């Protein structure tokens, strides 16, 4: 065992740093560092630069254009990106639908869909959740009724993140047996968003953001060729993937960067005749989060190491999402505490590039309360932390 980078790994790290310095657009970097939400154009611009470099798909097999990096390389990449201020790749194409396609799709489907994802020509969104389904995914009601070479899709998907930008949506739909709960009746469909029967309505979340949407399907005709794999196997495909690729689920690199920023902000915040970082209560809470994050980083490294040696991810990987969201939310609270009274103002657009008014407060710290509020979703979306605990209890602890 050792923690040091090999000379190859050090060389790779330098290459990544050089690439980021030369290629990451200044405006994208600034907004990312300030945690200001990026627009579609910004993401696409950056992802096309990654494509040029051949670094767009860090989790794909090489034959489809993936990087084929080692766990250590992925670790270096994630940390350098977070540190320097490069945004994460939007996951719906690269990390969610692509693996389903290259694992279970036909040759024809691979040819048709993967290149456009790799080049960021097409924006994907996810159609899993439904109103009232909550964490109980399998109870979905959206139907796809076979009619010749097409399915006729009816129903509603919800919590569709950035669906307002999407060209395509991948959905779990009920083919055959409409009796709810029958998981063997669920199929995996790819649907083009420009269909007249599809309407997207925004859901405003607590921080005042428009990130998620409801997507309504009204007699939407989808070619059978857009179904991935077997009819009725969609649930299996989705599940395998939920438990498969866990890299980054803990958001360790991003939390490390946020903690670094927080320390700087706290050291610039007056607290009587000292600064906030010197406040014993505050610095102790900060240190406790930093230590827990350090532990989580090694939990992730242990998981990556296991996977790289061909083993299945060990039990430790199952805690990544719970601890990752808990730590991110604890950081949100320390940001709020740093803001003090300047957590109160709500001038939602004052940190966008086109804002021309007089800004309130000492900087982006002023938006810490909306961010805290908005980020409560982290422990709810993508399988709530309660569901995660049920899963660990059953599958890891055997209870």
């Amino acid at each position, binding site marked *: 065992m050792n923690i040091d980078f090999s000379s190859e790994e050090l060389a790779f790290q330098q290459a990544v740093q050089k690439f980021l310095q030369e290629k990451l657009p200044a405006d994208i970097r600034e907004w990312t560092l300030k945690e200001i939400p990026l627009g579609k154009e910004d993401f696409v611009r950056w992802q096309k630069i990654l494509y040029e470099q051949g670094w767009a798909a860090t989790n794909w097999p090489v034959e489809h254009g993936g990087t084929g990096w080692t766990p250590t390389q992925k670790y270096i990449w994630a940390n350098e990106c977070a540190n320097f201020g490069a945004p994460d790749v939007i996951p719906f194409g690269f990390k969610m639908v692509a693996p389903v396609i290259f694992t279970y799709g036909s040759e024809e489907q691979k040819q048709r869909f993967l290149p456009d994802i790799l080049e960021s020509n097409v924006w994907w969104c996810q159609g899993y959740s439904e109103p009232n389904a*909550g964490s109980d995914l399998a109870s979905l009601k959206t139907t796809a009724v076979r009619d010749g070479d097409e399915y006729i899709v009816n129903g509603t998907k919800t919590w569709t993140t950035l669906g307002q930008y999407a060209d395509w949506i991948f959905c779990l739909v009920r083919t055959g047996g409409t009796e709810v709960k029958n998981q063997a009746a669920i199929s995996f469909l790819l649907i083009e968003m420009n269909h007249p029967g599809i309407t997207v309505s925004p859901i405003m979340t*607590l921080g005042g953001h428009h990130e998620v949407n409801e997507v309504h399907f009204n007699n939407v005709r989808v070619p059978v060729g857009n179904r991935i794999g077997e009819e009725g196997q969609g649930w299996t495909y989705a599940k395998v993937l939920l438990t498969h690729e866990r890299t980054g689920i803990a958001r360790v690199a991003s939390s490390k960067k946020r903690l670094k920023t927080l320390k700087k902000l706290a050291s610039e915040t007056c607290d009587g*005749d000292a600064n906030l970082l010197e406040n014993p209560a505050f610095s102790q809470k900060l240190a406790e989060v930093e230590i827990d994050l350090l532990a989580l980083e090694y939990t992730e490294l242990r998981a990556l190491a296991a996977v790289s040696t061909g083993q299945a991810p060990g039990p430790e990987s199952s805690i990544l999402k719970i601890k990752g969201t808990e730590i991110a939310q604890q950081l949100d609270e320390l940001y709020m505490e740093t803001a003090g009274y300047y957590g109160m*103002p709500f001038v939602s657009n004052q940190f966008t590039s086109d804002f021309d008014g007089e800004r309130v407060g*000492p900087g982006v710290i002023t938006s810490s*309360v909306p961010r805290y509020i908005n980020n409560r979703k982290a422990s*709810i979306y993508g399988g709530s932390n309660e569901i995660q605990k049920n899963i660990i209890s059953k599958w890891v602890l055997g209870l």
Partner: protein
Amino acid sequence: MDFSYSEEQQMLQNSVSKFIQQDYDFDRRCKLVASDIGFSQENWQLFAELGWLMVPFKAEDGGLGGSAIDLMVVMEEFGRGLVVEPFLASVVLSGSLIANGASESQKRELLGLLMDGQLQLAFAFAEPQSRYNLADVATTAVREGDNYILNGHKAVVLNGEGADKLLVAVRTGGSQIDGNGITLLLVEANVEGVHRQGYTTVDGHRAAEVKFRNVKVPVANRVGEEGTALPVIERAMDWATLALCAEAVGAMDKIYKKTIEYTKTREQFGVAIGKFQALQHRMVDMFTEYEQARSILLMAALQLDSNKGMAPKAVSAAKSRTGKAARLIGQEAIQLHGGIGVTEELDVSHYFKRLTTIQYLFGSSDFHTLRFAGH
């Protein structure tokens, strides 16, 4: 010892509670928050007619007696309704400064108007660098003949945009964090050199950045003696903090019960989620936090009325404990509501926002824990 409400207190509670239930539902409140001034003048006049604006004041000042228990009763109900009218900023906080710091003539001039609902006040104390330290005052007032010349920047002044007059804590002597040398000035909000930038706060209230550039304030507008304002400010802050704790308790009562009711109807995997034992035990924790917050609030209110010099410690205990309860109950209410909990359309979300800002307003739990411990 006696823990029962007087008849008057029960009547007061009934009248406020009736108003909240009948005339202050969630949709109306949303409209008020979205309106120009951010609250309803009509409601304000009603508060005045019903005598609620007189609650914080002593009988000899023309008030209803100024008992902390009475104030608690009103603010709890306001918490249940998430009331956005500037009762706390204008009547409780600023009113206390006038009632306890001003001359008889100033009182005569101002308190009547305040209780009639014809005068709106705001207290400008916090500054960009001050955090929760009331003695940290960099805004200066320099004596020039019969005037003070006022310069500085006051941060997040509650009701700062809507106020007719501003009570401003200024430094007339001593160093920036010196307890002595702080003076209270009453400043007309619309005079030259006063620059107010108003905004909505996260919780739907209104506040403003207020900047003073060579503002002339007649010496006659000084409230109390020069350089001796801190004790009056601390007293006003203690009462306002108690009121804030009461508002939090009312809001917590509302959402912990709403959460319980929601889990009785919301089904997952074919069962009401309220049947899941893990969630049941967490709701018991919410309930426990609520009861402990209600108890510490009662303790602080009784100490304020008993007036045995324990008030500051008691208020800090209440704010520290209430802040912790507000955090747990607010976070759990959202978590147990799931996806819907993080949307604008759900009222619980807005209670959560207010409980979040209350955690930090007038001092965080850590700040008040240390104040309680005498550090």
